[in-house]
């Protein structure tokens, strides 16, 4: 696909330069984070220009070693992983069947369309509106500073992805297969698990990855609801700014550690990002 048109050479060169500028802009911040994390702290701001490693300074892994050997960074990383994975699991367990139901069955009282939009509407809700009731709720339930609280919340906020996108994935599968299975005496559950689920698996994996990434990146709730044991990595990251100023070297190391996992996931599910983040409204 795409529109192929003949172009005169100079314009192509201009286009290429523009493309490179755009790409450079897109990766600059990440590049700078990586470079800063590789500099000895004393040289953070003494190396000028764009600080090319090896050319302009001798990179060191010292900051990384310090950061990874700190107890706090390890357990907050572990917390982030646990919360992201379990929240995604819950969201998928609730969302995929719901998406399937919306794709395959007809709902009367509230139409399928409206149900879908209803699920979707949660993404509209600004988190700060519900952070206070959640805080008080978790306090009553004695769940402040627990992973469970974060899992419940993040599952809620990623549920729309799971529902809406899996609905679309199932809609795109021909229903005939399941109908044939039903004729053969399969129950609806078996038809769902044996036939529809495997066929939709690639999309569902992508949805799961999106849920993991969003949960991983979540900050507001983690800040409000955790204090010690359940602290996630982004909240820990916020601690690199101490009373006497910013420790840029640790901050950069932590920032890169924080954004590493979600960006890798993003690369793995490239093909699904458009569909995923637009809730299937645009097909990539």
């Amino acid at each position, binding site marked *: 696909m795409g529109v192929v*048109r003949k172009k005169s050479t100079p314009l192509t060169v201009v286009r290429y330069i523009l493309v490179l500028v755009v790409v450079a802009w*897109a990766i600059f911040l990440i590049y700078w984070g990586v470079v800063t994390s590789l500099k000895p702290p004393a040289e953070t701001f003494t190396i000028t*220009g764009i600080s090319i490693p090896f050319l302009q300074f001798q990179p060191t892994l010292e900051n990384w070693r310090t950061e990874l050997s700190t107890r706090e960074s390890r357990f907050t990383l572990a917390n982030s992983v646990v919360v992201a994975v379990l929240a995604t699991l819950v969201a998928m367990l609730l969302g995929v069947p*719901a998406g399937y139901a919306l794709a395959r069955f*007809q709902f009367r009282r509230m139409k399928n369309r409206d149900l879908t939009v*209803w699920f979707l509407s949660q993404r509209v809700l600004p988190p*700060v509106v519900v952070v206070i009731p959640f805080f008080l709720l978790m306090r009553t339930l004695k769940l402040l500073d627990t992973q469970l609280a974060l899992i419940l919340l993040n599952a809620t906020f990623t549920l729309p992805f799971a529902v809406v996108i899996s609905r679309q994935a199932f809609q795109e599968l021909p229903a005939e297969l399941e109908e044939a299975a039903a004729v053969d005496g399969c129950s609806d559950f078996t038809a769902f698990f044996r036939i529809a689920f495997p066929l939709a698996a690639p999309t569902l994996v992508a949805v799961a990855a999106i849920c993991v990434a969003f949960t991983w990146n979540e900050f507001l709730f983690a800040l409000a609801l955790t204090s010690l044991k359940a602290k996630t990595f*982004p909240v820990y990251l916020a601690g690199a700014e101490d009373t006497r100023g910013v420790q840029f070297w640790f901050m950069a190391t932590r920032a890169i550690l924080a954004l590493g996992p979600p960006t890798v996931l993003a690369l793995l599910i490239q093909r699904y990002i458009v569909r995923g983040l637009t809730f299937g409204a645009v097909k990539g």
Partner: protein
Amino acid sequence: MSLKNRSIKYAFILPGIFWVLAFTIFPLFYSFSLSFFRVRLGKPARFVGLDNFLRLFGDYKLGNSLRITLIYVAITVSIQVILGILIALLFNQEMKGKSLFRALLILPIFCTPVAVGYLGLTVFYEEGGPINSILMSLFDWKIPWLSQPFWAWVAVLLLDIWQWTPFCFLVVLAGLQSLPDEVYDAAYLDSASEWEIFRKITFPMIQPVVIIVLLLRLIESFKIFDVVYSLTGGGPGTATEVYSLYTYRTGLKFFDFGYASALGYLLLAMVMVIVNLFFRRVRQVYE
């Protein structure tokens, strides 16, 4: 179809519905009731009627953060969408290394926003940060990024634009690539100019996609919290104290839960107005 009307469907969908009711609708009601009380932890809540809502009108800090947020949303969303379209047009043709470039452009989208804010802190650092050190060596001039209200605001905008323009680009590109080639052929025969082709053919055809992008970005932009929290902390002064940050502080730093709930509801109302402008369009998508 045989599958259409089975009661088994409820087994599939009800858990999800109950979950949402429990974790979204309930907190919303709870929050609504809170907004009629003066709540101090450790002391009994006191019913104050509409006090908290009346306070909204006299609160200049609210006015400040509302103004900041609205201007911010308007600017960041329009720049992101316009840049997204331009970059998508740039990429919408054969070129070497396209898939690599596209992959690199995707990176910002999934970056942890708090981390982005903190990386911003290093990049915008005034004495020796990369941008200022380059400016210094070229023009002997540096930008007071985080010490001046205006520039701090620009810094926040830049980070947000950095993170979300790629998303707009990606979606618009997907829209462009789904257009059939034939529509252009006739135009080429007419030898219309690039701009005319874009205005008369391309844009009308990708307009639905652009509207989706616009809506999604509008909704998300109202939520902004993380980047501001980490980059400027709302400062200098209150120059970048966006709505979510103000609400968060009122509620969870000073424990004025009732008023913070009222603030939350005002934000919700604004977002709902915007969503309703697009509502019909959204429903069509899921027909």
